[in-house]
């Protein structure tokens, strides 16, 4: 199954230090535009930029081209940038079956178009349940997401409880 990931989730998964495990165990795709957006952080030595570049070079994350036709409508309707719009287009064009995004507008569009949707917290818990990462690593990843403050606390706490109780 091919999974499309946007810049926002690449950054969060990188902060949680599970991007590499995710990329090694799933078929991850990013658009050329998302790759460009992420690499803008390379000059500032952001870990997400350096790690994504490495994973792309190792072919663990694949770059895919999308045409503008559907993306233009998404940009207009949801005020997205080209990167997010093209990531969603990957599903609308049946090039991917699933999207991982933590971008508020991206998630809104995914719900409206009834796309298979997931987020970074979901990725951490799934990696744990599939025994790709151990309990210690999963809790540490969730703590990093908690400390970054992107998600509501109750959501991270519920995910931590799920892991601790398994």
């Amino acid at each position: 199954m091919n999974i499309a990931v946007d810049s926002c989730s690449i950054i969060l998964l990188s902060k949680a230090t599970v991007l590499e495990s995710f990329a090694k165990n799933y078929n991850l795709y990013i658009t050329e535009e998302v790759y460009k957006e992420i690499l803008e952080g390379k000059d500032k030595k952001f870990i997400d930029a350096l790690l994504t570049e490495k994973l792309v070079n190792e072919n663990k994350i694949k770059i895919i081209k999308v045409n503008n036709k559907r993306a233009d409508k998404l940009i207009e309707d949801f005020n997205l940038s080209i990167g997010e719009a093209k990531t969603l287009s990957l599903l609308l064009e049946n090039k991917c079956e699933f999207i991982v995004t933590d971008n508020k507008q991206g998630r809104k569009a995914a719900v409206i178009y009834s796309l298979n949707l997931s987020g970074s917290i979901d990725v951490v818990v799934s990696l744990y349940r599939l025994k790709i990462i151990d309990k210690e690593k999963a809790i540490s990843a969730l703590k990093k997401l908690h400390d970054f403050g992107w998600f509501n606390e109750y959501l991270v706490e519920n995910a931590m409880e799920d892991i601790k109780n398994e």
Partner: protein
Amino acid sequence: MNETRFFGARMEKEVYNIIDKVAQEENLDKTSAMKMLIHEGWKELRLKKMLSQYEKGLISVDKAARILRITINETMNLISSRGIKSEETLEDYRRGVKLLMQKII
């Protein structure tokens, strides 16, 4: 060379004192201090506007980053530092995990 325009302005003593204080602190003349304050104020104003639009669901993170001319990573840091949270719910999370469990290579 940048083209310049003359602009005379009457201001409250309090505002004048801010310009004077910044000029002293930054070792600038008053005109340069005022320009600096306008630039910084403009940047903050734009940032507040973008974050407010993001919070209301009117703009995406990457679009905000593009307008602010900063990276997505930096925009996400700003959003988090201002306490703006994702809208993902417990139900979304449970559904997301269920889907991901089926999508392994």
